[in-house]
């Protein structure tokens, strides 16, 4: 049973934080309704009315999401690597991770130079 206590504590904390945030937001936040607030999604592309032929729509959000995935994947690799860093024998671990980060940086440089980071 001892084994499960940390998980239970973490679960209680997570549920508590979620409940606290929702309740506090509802109690303390200002309520100024407008048209945008009644949309299904408060941000992004307006789903209706559709322009003729589908039209052009901004891909800013899409770019941001793609960029997020690039760094998200990087973190997924970096985190366990950092935790186990002292267990790598020799330089191999460091060199491989530098190579990996350099490759991700190439993608980042491409996005940056091609204006993927500019909002307007």
């Amino acid at each position, binding site marked *: 049973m*001892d084994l499960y206590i940390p998980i239970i504590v973490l679960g209680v904390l997570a549920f508590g934080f979620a409940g606290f945030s929702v309740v506090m937001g509802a109690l303390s936040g200002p309520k100024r309704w407008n048209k945008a607030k009644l949309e299904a999604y408060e941000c992004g592309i307006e789903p209706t009315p559709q322009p003729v*032929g589908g039209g*052009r729509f901004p891909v800013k959000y899409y770019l941001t999401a793609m960029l997020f995935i690039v760094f998200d994947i990087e973190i997924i690799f970096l985190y366990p690597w950092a935790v*186990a860093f002292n*267990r790598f024998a020799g330089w191999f*671990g460091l060199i491989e991770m530098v190579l990996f980060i350099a490759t991700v940086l190439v*993608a980042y*440089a*491409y996005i940056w130079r091609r204006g993927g980071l500019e909002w307007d």
Partner: protein
Amino acid sequence: MTGSAVLNTVAIGDIQAPHLEYGQLGPMLLVFGVAVLGVLVEALVGRGWRQFIQVPLTFAGLAGAFVWILVLGVKDKPLHVAAEGAVGVDAPTLFLQGTILVLALVSLLLIADRQNGAFTPQASALPGSDAEREGIASGTVQSELYPLMLFAVGGMMLFTAANDLLTMFVALEVMSLPLYIMCGLARRRRLLSQEAAVKYFLLGAFSSAFFLYGTALLYGYAGSVRLSDIATATGNNAGSEPLLLAGIALLSVGLLFKLGAVPFQAWKPDVYQGAPTPVTALMASCTLVAAVGATLRVFYVALENMSWDWRPMMWGVAILTMLVGAIIAITQTDLKRMLAYSSIAHAGFLLTGVIATSQAGLSGTLFYLAAYGFTTIGAFAVITMVRDAGGEAGHLSRWAGLGKRSPVVAGVFAFFLLAFAGIPLTSGFTGKFAVFKAAIDGGATPLVVVGVISSAIAAFFYLRVIVVMFFSEPAADGPAVVTTIPTAAAVALGATVTVVLGVLPQPMLDVAGQAASHLFVR
């Protein structure tokens, strides 16, 4: 046991560096490295210079990798398992990788041909919109094509070399994702091109899921994703049969989809027709080589002991593929679509070599792939040359009387079609002969009978095109033949190899035979 004790038991032992044979992985690393370099060029070099840097860079990367493969093949008997068992570098793999690289170099001639104008300057622009006209007027090009092509080619090389199913899956994705994008970049008939890209992406993602599910089931059966371990497990007859059979079936679906075998061929006509013709040439040659290479390795190594179980299924698929491809091609009026169905029929012929599971079957298939790849690229290159006001004149009726107006181009195209049909003195005959002979020796005579019947059906529609070109009157507003040096070079290369492998096939047959002499490494 307390929680801290559990944590302590995990954190022992150093992580040893895996042993990587950089020399043997070199060709693939080179192609991927140049692809990353290409992305940097896209990022840092001014717009006007990109094309002029990318084309030589891509050419150098592919040619360098090919030379490296030649050195690896000549230097010693290549029978290595590299990268801790993830990659097999053996003679058939080197042959396939070399074929992919040479075919990619020829495709590069078509892709880099700027006068060809096959690619849209702005992929995001809607067909017929102001933005698209603006892009065309500004004369920009999407030079991202070259890194994308290199990533795809690197993925194909890894796909043929992958020695475990997970590496194979990663390679499958690396090879497919750039191709999905490249399909949607046609400058003319934008809607058709975008439709092709979406269809290819959705169906490809679906088939990847099948492949992965099959991998999971085979892992559940054998306890390993390595092809040789799966072979050992099937030999011991351990574990549960349904798991194994379901795994084989799902894995086969994923592989046969990439091959375009019936009943998984639905994407091929749409994608081949919609994609820019240079990309179609790349897909019809290099992707087919990669897909057949991986299929060969899976069926020759991992599923060797199960041949009594998968053979009936593969017989059915091969017969259907040969017949459906040849019969439906008869009704096609678009040349690219017709060649797509012809490619389906050829995938069926190649499958007879896979089914043979012998050294002769392997060497025959290797030879067939090299011969067919060159003929295909040549044929698609000719299609890019015949143009009218709306771009390529893809409809068969537009080609009427071409033989009277440009006898050389029509003659070369007729020659390619005869090679597809398998007429003697072309490489198509030698390839078919090698594969069919191996199949007969392997006891698959009925399959060969179906193959010959299907060849006869196919000859009908190849000859029909020749009749339309040479024996009908040219229309007054018929298409013009636009000859540019890179495209002409691709056509000349394709025609030369088709002749040489038809008239003097022995040296190439010897190379393929030597490559197949030790089968695949385990």
